[in-house]
């Protein structure tokens, strides 16, 4: 870790100011056994559930099992220096992480400690990682959109601020790619992002951070990383830590977006901890509370009303609602969504984006299955113009896929079926979008409008991608006023429709693709 000298002395100064040499009275226990990061401790009669325990050598643990004669605790971090007979102290505090603006742009571990070599975190406040989600009275319904910048998602499965939208699919189907694009698209919108990486390779996390930096998206993002090398305990608490950091913004009347990448691995880590704590295994060897593990986490992603924000901030922020939108990611094995954890999370969330390996391999990226992907609340929150123009896309695509499979066996088709197939083929092409290129509302509207109004019908299916790219650059260079208008007002009326008609006619007449 690189530190400049002033930082060190500032740190020491603040620590000395805070330091109170009070005589401490704490309960103490003894480690009886220590296996695989789980310590069984005798004593500690008044330990609380989820209390931080202090082990020798500046090591901390988390009391999870409170039994009659012993306490089962997971050790957060390395534990090779501990041994049987070491004394363990209660700290009287539940596990907390630092929160605040100072975390933005930083990469931290599950405990909020920096791991990016940029010095200490400038955060004065801390907050417990486990909190109860806002109740019914404090909430407000979701009616503002989160633009992911991906046509396929914003048109077919729109996500609102405060929604929980699951991203589910096999390995290598572009789950994380969607999440990263969504983060990049939040640049300049004021939405703060938290990316929680659980059980991933450290190299993958480093790659994500580098991509975010390249696209200027790190300034509004916190990365919480519990890599595959970290202990299972750290992997299992990482989503809660990230959620607490995101809630800071929600509770101050801002909007935040959190990505849990991925909850399957978190469930694995929790299963490991639970089995080592000798809790009884259930289906697929997960403990009995694996549903609650995810439901209590995802309930915290919510939109809260202005009164609640005012109450939390003691009247500092007035008239603003706060939201925390969650994109949990679940990895399936061989497309099996009926496994234990996928079904649980599907039932908890407000919809899912279902990614398919077959689509991905046939070049349709993002590989979204239009039939199985839904958003249960997003329609109310969709941008007006996209809602109007993209309304039929999901249904049309789903029907096209069915028809296409059926039409393979038919020798000659009637006119309307053939037309539907051709339209579907072009819309499928249109929904393709390369990574790291989120689109603005105007660009998306132009593409959807072209498809709806039949401007694509005389474009060869394999030229649709090129057509769209040329159209976007035309919109950018020659139709600035119109783009600006759509981006700011996001409204669709006859005037906008006429302007789009004119623009497309002009484009088709004078440009090549």
């Amino acid at each position: 870790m690189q530190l400049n000298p002033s930082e060190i002395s500032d740190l020491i100064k603040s620590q000395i100011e805070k330091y109170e040499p009070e005589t401490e009275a704490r309960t103490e226990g003894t480690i009886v056994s220590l296996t695989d990061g789980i310590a069984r401790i005798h004593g500690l009669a008044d330990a609380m559930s989820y209390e931080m325990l202090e082990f020798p050598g500046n090591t901390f643990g988390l009391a999870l099992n409170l039994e009659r004669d012993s306490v089962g605790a997971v050790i957060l971090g390395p534990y090779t220096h501990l041994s049987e007979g070491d004394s363990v102290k209660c700290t009287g505090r539940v596990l907390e992480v630092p929160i605040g603006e100072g975390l933005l742009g930083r990469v931290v571990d599950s405990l909020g400690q920096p791991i990016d070599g940029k010095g200490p975190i400038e955060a004065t406040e801390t907050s417990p990682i486990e909190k109860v989600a806002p109740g019914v009275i404090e909430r407000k319904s979701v009616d503002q959109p989160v633009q992911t910048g991906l046509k396929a998602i914003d048109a077919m499965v729109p996500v609102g601020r405060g929604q929980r939208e699951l991203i589910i699919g096999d390995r290598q189907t572009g789950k994380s790619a969607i999440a990263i694009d969504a983060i990049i698209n939040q640049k300049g919108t004021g939405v703060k992002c938290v990316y929680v990486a659980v059980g991933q390779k450290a190299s993958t996390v480093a790659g994500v951070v580098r991509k975010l930096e390249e696209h200027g998206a790190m300034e509004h993002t916190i990365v919480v990383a519990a890599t595959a090398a970290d202990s299972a305990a750290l992997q299992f608490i990482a989503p809660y830590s990230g959620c607490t950091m995101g809630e800071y913004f929600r509770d101050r009347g801002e909007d935040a977006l959190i990505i849990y990448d991925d909850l399957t691995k978190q469930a694995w880590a929790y299963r490991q901890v639970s089995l080592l704590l000798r809790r009884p295994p259930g289906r697929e060897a997960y403990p009995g509370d694996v549903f609650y593990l995810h439901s209590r986490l995802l309930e915290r992603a919510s939109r809260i009303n202005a009164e609640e924000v005012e109450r939390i901030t003691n009247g500092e922020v007035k008239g603003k609602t706060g939201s925390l939108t969650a994109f949990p990611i679940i990895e399936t094995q061989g497309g099996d969504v009926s496994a234990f954890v996928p079904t649980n999370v599907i039932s908890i969330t407000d919809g899912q984006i279902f990614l398919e390996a077959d689509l991905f391999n046939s070049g349709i990226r993002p590989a979204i299955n239009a039939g199985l992907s839904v958003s249960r609340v997003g329609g109310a929150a969709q941008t007006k113009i996209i809602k109007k123009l993209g309304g039929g896309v999901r249904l049309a695509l789903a029907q096209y896929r069915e028809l296409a499979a059926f039409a393979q066996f038919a020798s000659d088709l009637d006119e309307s079926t053939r037309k539907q197939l051709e339209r579907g083929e072009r819309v499928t092409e249109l929904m393709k979008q390369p990574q790291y290129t989120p689109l603005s509302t105007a660009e998306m509207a132009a593409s959807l409008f072209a498809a709806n109004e039949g401007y694509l019908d005389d474009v060869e299916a394999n030229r649709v991608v090129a057509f769209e790219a040329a159209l976007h650059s035309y919109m950018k260079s020659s139709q600035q006023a119109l783009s600006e208008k759509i981006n700011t007002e996001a409204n669709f009326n006859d005037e906008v429709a006429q302007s789009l008609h004119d623009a497309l006619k002009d484009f088709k007449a004078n440009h090549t693709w």
Partner: protein
Amino acid sequence: MAGETTTIARPYAEAIFGRASESDKLDHWSDMLGLLSALVQDARVAAAISNPKLESSQRIALMQDICGEHLDAEGQNLVRLLVRNGRLGVLPEIAALYEGLKNESQGTIDVQVVSAYEMTQDQEDKLAAALKKRLDRDIRVTSEINSELIGGVLIRAGDLVIDGSVQGRLRKLATELGI
């Protein structure tokens, strides 16, 4: 002191305590359990009682021979019971739990005071009075000297640890600074 043996020892300790209160022999039982637990912790005895060649009756005889008249009839019954259940090994735990129960019923607690330097009688009295008030019990103080504390005192009463030593403060400062 292992968590699991505590669970095994608890019913024995509670039973003995119940019997001792009924027959008003709390101190007598205390002595007997102290002797027995010291006995099974002795390396030679421990080796003998865990020797698989020995039969249960021989083990009982061995224990009774060593204890002689220190064990009364009920004490001998306890030994027999423990041998039959194969629980002689938890005797130290039973003794500790029994002492805890006894202290609780008598409203006393054992307090260990560790200090860096030897304390004067006046200091000890003051400390004892303060602890009595804090813990709301009669206390039995055992003191110890450990120069590693550098200064101040460290008080242990059961699970509760009151760390007023210089060493403890330095360690706390180190934790605050993250070293």
